[in-house]
């Protein structure tokens, strides 16, 4: 199914949770913050949210800045 991750349309496995999605993307859940359809999902809750077709997901972290 198609979702939008960080502004890009991506095909991912249907029915995955956010935690499984991070694994699929080879991302460490401790190193990213997840926003799912504009709502922040806490780390502990990542396994409880199932991703649906067309969902918008933002994965952010800290980069250099002033």
């Amino acid at each position, binding site marked *: 199914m198609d979702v939008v*991750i*960080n*502004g*890009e349309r991506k095909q991912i496995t249907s029915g995955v949770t956010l935690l499984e999605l991070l694994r699929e*993307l*080879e*991302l460490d859940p401790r*190193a*990213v*913050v997840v*926003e799912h359809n504009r709502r*922040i999902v*806490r*780390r502990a809750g990542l396994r409880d949210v199932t991703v649906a077709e067309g969902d918008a997901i*933002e*994965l*952010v*972290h*800290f*980069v*250099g*800045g*002033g």
Partner: protein
Amino acid sequence: MTTAVETIRDEPLTIGGRTFHSRLMVGTGKYPDMDTMVRAIEASGAEVVTVAVRRVNLDRTKESSVLHFLDPKHHFLLANTAGCYTAADAMRYARLAREAGFNDFVKLEVIGDEETLLPDVQGLLEAAKVLVQEGFKVLAYTNEDLVTALRLEDAGCAAVMPLASPIGSGLGLLNPFSVRTIKRRLHVPVIVDAGVGTASDACVTMEQGVDGILMNTAIAAAQDPVAMAQAMRLATAAGRTAYLAGRMPRREVAMPSSPTKGMLD
């Protein structure tokens, strides 16, 4: 006979209930490479380092986070909302930053103009009020306007951060009078943020009596960032010490330093 130099007694800098050992805070952007950044931050002696919130690069995830190079146990990570042009965006970035789990401090920026990167003070006040209500310790990046600074303090900001000059300009402290006035009138710490170009700028800024200074480009864009970071550490300390020492009054005429009596006929 040699006498030990006494260290001037200074209060520690406390912001939002947290005490910091260095009055110099540094950014982590625009360094030629991460090794230089790490060594420059070390040389600066800064405890507070700022970071930005950005999308993970899905193609190259391994080395893009600044946390691969900075130990959050040794540095206090101050997330910014740089690049945000509305109060809503700034609040969104602040909430994402807090979720990273390090602290509830945020360097709040709401930018109002692309060319000058000057703050949108209306959006800034709006975002500051909401974030303070949500329990954030807000350090508000603002211009050198006293009334805005007072409003930000009233809104509950933990610190107010007037600029020395526009972000990344290196023009130094353009309005010492306004910055001094803000410092005199506010009760929360005043940290000058942005615009410093070289060590003398940092020194002059600290001589105004402000509580601290935050800089990024002045160090990162120097030809030798590590050496400049060291110069900034010394200049910040020199300016602070000179402020505490209390400068001599300015006068328009000369006054001899040597005795006028005892001259030969």
